């Protein structure tokens, strides 16, 4: 008797709730384009934010709504982006691949140290503790905050303590740009081949006292570049990328330190006049530098 009563009560309760839920589902139903789920399924689901949306789901919604092009996803292989565009019947879009680039070439074999930093191995901690001891106050500290921030294993630290970006793996997600306390990273389209690998605003001789590969602002590249492509701003050669069509290997040729380089096919090409660095080991700490 007791068992039957309990079964009847629980069964009745379940039935009543099921009816309420069914009615609620009918009345409160939100019509959603089923293609959003399909597109999300096709996306890489890294939620990296490189496309500008707060995650892959938001990007799928934007694509379906026609507010974004599938090619804006820099993580998907191009074939997958083309497939998504085909599936939705929208334009693929024409997004040029961007990569993160470091505006410093001062590894520990060419850049001098005034004092040794011992402490939490993080660039940001070193900046809080008097700047980290590097003589150049704009240069890379080499404590790998960017390497830690990269979710795609695209950044590795080389033997001289400089981060190297693997252009194939880099999806331009902006994480390293945010992580670097010295703002040395920026996202650049791969067609920007002429690159000034220095951020020092110090004057000529002072740059050389701190680092052997810094930009001294000697303006030889300015003289060699056509049509105002390069200008000197605050003692630093600056490339005007709106005139990128004029870029060639010519301006790098006479650079005495090799601070301005040509980046193509995963190689860094320095000019003929750039001083050759054969030193491999780190420079000693020198408080008078």
């Amino acid at each position, binding site marked *: 008797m007791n068992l039957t009563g309990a079964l009847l009560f629980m069964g009745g309760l379940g039935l009543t709730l099921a009816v309420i839920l069914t009615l609620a589902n009918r009345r409160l139903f939100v019509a959603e384009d089923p293609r959003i789920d399909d597109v999300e399924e096709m996306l890489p689901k890294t939620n990296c934010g490189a496309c500008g949306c707060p995650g892959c789901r938001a990007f799928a919604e934007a694509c379906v709504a026609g507010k974004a092009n599938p090619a804006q996803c820099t993580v998907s292989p191009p074939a997958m982006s083309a497939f998504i565009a085909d599936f939705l019947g929208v334009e693929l879009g024409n997004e040029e691949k961007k990569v993160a680039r470091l505006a410093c070439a001062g590894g520990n074999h060419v850049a001098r140290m005034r004092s040794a930093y011992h402490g939490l191995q993080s660039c*940001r*901690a070193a900046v*809080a503790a*008097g700047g*980290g001891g590097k003589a150049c106050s704009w240069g890379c500290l080499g404590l790998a905050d960017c390497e830690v921030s990269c979710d795609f294993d695209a950044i590795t630290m080389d033997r001289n303590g400089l981060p190297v970006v693997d252009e194939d793996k880099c999806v331009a997600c902006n994480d390293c740009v945010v992580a670097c306390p010295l703002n040395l990273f920026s996202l650049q389209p791969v067609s920007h081949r002429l690159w000034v690998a220095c951020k020092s*605003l110090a004057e000529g001789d002072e740059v050389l006292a701190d680092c052997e590969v810094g930009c001294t602002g000697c303006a030889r590249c300015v003289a060699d570049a056509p049509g105002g492509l390069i200008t000197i701003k605050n003692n630093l050669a600056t490339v005007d990328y709106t005139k990128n069509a004029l870029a060639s290997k010519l301006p790098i040729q006479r650079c005495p330190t090799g601070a301005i380089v040509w980046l193509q096919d995963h190689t860094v090409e320095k000019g003929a006049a750039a001083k050759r660095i054969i030193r491999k080991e780190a420079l000693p700490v020198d*408080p008078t530098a």
Partner: protein
Amino acid sequence: MFDLLKFLRPSGTFSHGIHPAENKHFTAHLPIRRLPFAPELVLPLSQHFGAPSESLVHPGQEVVRGEPIAKANGFMSVPLHAPATGRIKRIELMPTAKGPRTPSILLEVYPGDSQEVRYDAPRDYTTMEPKAIVQAVQDTGLVGLGGAAFPTHVKLSPPQGHHVHTVLINGCECEPFLTTDHRVMLEYPEDLIRGTKILMKALGAERAIIGTEENKMDAVAAIQAHLPTDGPISVQAVPTKYPQGAEKMLAKALMGVEIPSGNFPSSVGLGVFNVASTAELGALFPHSRGVIERVVTVTGPGIEKPGNYLVPIGTPVGFILKQLGFTGTSNCLIMGGPMMGGSVASLAVPMTKGSGGLLVLTEQILEQQQRDAVSYPCISCAQCVAACPMHLNPSQLGKLAHKHRYEEMQGDFHLMDCFECGCCSYVCPSGIPLVQYFRIAKSSLREQAARERAAAS
């Protein structure tokens, strides 16, 4: 039994905090002495909290000691005065104690000059309007000499609706090793009392308390000797404890009030000023002079002649150390005290208005430190919770910082109330660099907020 009832009595101090070895015996008994002028002074245009000063000089120009060489750029800024008679060499980017290079005026000192301070019109604060006093204080270029370098005249202009009834003069100097404030109280009590009266007049305050710690009773006696017993100014010693010298801790100890999170002391009717700044104000104000030198404690086991020295602003650290017998490297230097000071990365860094101490360690100590600097996982012992004077939870904050969950630290665990006193790192038995984590988190959050502001505008 009576110990159990202790919480019922006003304790005259704040809760939590630590008591590190004081190490003040190196310099506490040594009178303030003058150091010679360096051949070249480096004067950063941004020595204070706020907008950098605007240079008034050009290379090659001759300046007289005490003459303004840079003017204030707006209200949140102060002028800069020439610390010596000489010639302006150039204006260029020079390294500072914080690390990045900032525009600085380089002054070549005339070696044979008598270095008389330029004479200016006398001023009498008793007949001046509060508004005029605030302007005159800005003209002295005075900032908080305790380290934060917050412009004093800004503190004298509390926000609308705040009335300051009590001025607290902060002479706690809770940092180990430093004795600058101690010597100033002992040697310049008259300037200190005059400065206090100027501050009271500018704020319309009824009374003032000079607060110091119980390890400086001789300073209390020296000031009391110059005070009437029933006047509006009194001296009070509170228990020696770190960080007693933080303004929130001092307000709690002397007045028993808590300054609400994110608010100025003026929101509870208080104005808190550093004792060295107040004495400097008392000395400068009657003669319309500007800040051109300050007392610096140069101390520590790594220096031959420790002491309290009157140093012209802009003297490079390397020059001071050479005068006082030091042969080590820049690895051993800390600008300020051992708890909150920052390491100095270069001997070319100048002493600025905010630098009150220079601690010199030895290579042996550093090597020992590096050997001991091993960090183990958090064992949740809560010693940091018992030490944090802001009643935060450093243990939890540290775990979140390790995972880079900075927004959660700010939103749920009040990271921004942390003023980086370092008590948590000091007591941590696992050697976790907690305060360093918090500095990283705070700098990341500040940068992110700046980016969001830039994106919004």
